């Protein structure tokens, strides 16, 4: 077994109102970043886990996202990286 460090991005699903993202976008606009068209604020989760291969670790973390880390009703998740810890 090898220890893997898995990074996960969880963001509000497109089309679902994200007031936090909107507040940040408004603040960026008032700072002069007029080019900003959309901001969504989510969570970044790092899970360290033991697995035989990186693919196996990825599969485990995907299951964790589906079961707990992300809400399937309102959020999308993405496994951003799986690296040897």
């Amino acid at each position, binding site marked *: 077994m090898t220890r893997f460090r898995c990074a996960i991005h969880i963001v*509000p699903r497109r089309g*679902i*109102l994200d*007031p*936090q993202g909107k*507040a940040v976008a408004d603040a960026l606009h008032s700072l002069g970043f007029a080019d900003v068209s959309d901001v969504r604020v989510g969570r970044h989760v790092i899970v360290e886990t033991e697995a035989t291969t990186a693919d196996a670790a990825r599969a485990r973390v995907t299951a964790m996202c589906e079961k*707990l*880390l992300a*809400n399937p*009703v*309102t959020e999308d998740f993405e496994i951003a990286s799986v690296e040897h810890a």
Partner: protein
Amino acid sequence: MKAGIVRFPGSNCDEDAFHAIADHLGQDAVYLWHKDHDLQNVDVVILPGGFSYGDYLRAGAIARFSPIMQEVIAFAKRGGPVLGICNGFQIACEAGLLPGALLRNASLRFVSAPARLRVESIATRFTSQYHIGQVISIPVAHGDGRFTADADTLARLEGDGRVVFRYVDADGESSASANPNGSLRNIAGIVNADRNVLGMMPHPERALDVTLGSTDGVPLFASILESMLAEVKA
């Protein structure tokens, strides 16, 4: 009737719910500890308001996996009545007992104020003592109360008469200005398809005494008792 009030670490409306059952209804009430597996033969389960597990990850997300919730889910699937208030509504959604999710208020502000609700369905064991279209005042106190669901789910909830309470203005209209949190369709409370699980963001247990400004929560608890007595007779 015997009601069980679940206590999670961070529950803070558990004593109010106990008071509603024991003192206002004069019925038996027991606390159910989150680590227990025993529902103690209760007839109804109340998931009270609060901040279970500190609202970590998402409101209700961790509570949903506590030992007692596995029993509550099985109880609900057998048709047992479950009332989820505020954090209890969030937990019921996370547990899959109710569809949708409760997200951060659109204003990004915690809202603590009396809310005007219209009773949209009396065909539930929680609302039979109201009349349809009745406008009532029940306080809300939450930061994550924006009911959200996909278009299919909303259509099903509306079509099956499962929206039980809606936020309305002084004219009884479900206007945007009456909506304290940005809930889709001004939804304040819903039931599951079998109509034995009610989730609502407002706090009926805080509206039982004139001293507290409203007694409009009384018929809700009376409805639960009434449905239990009807069941015993049948």
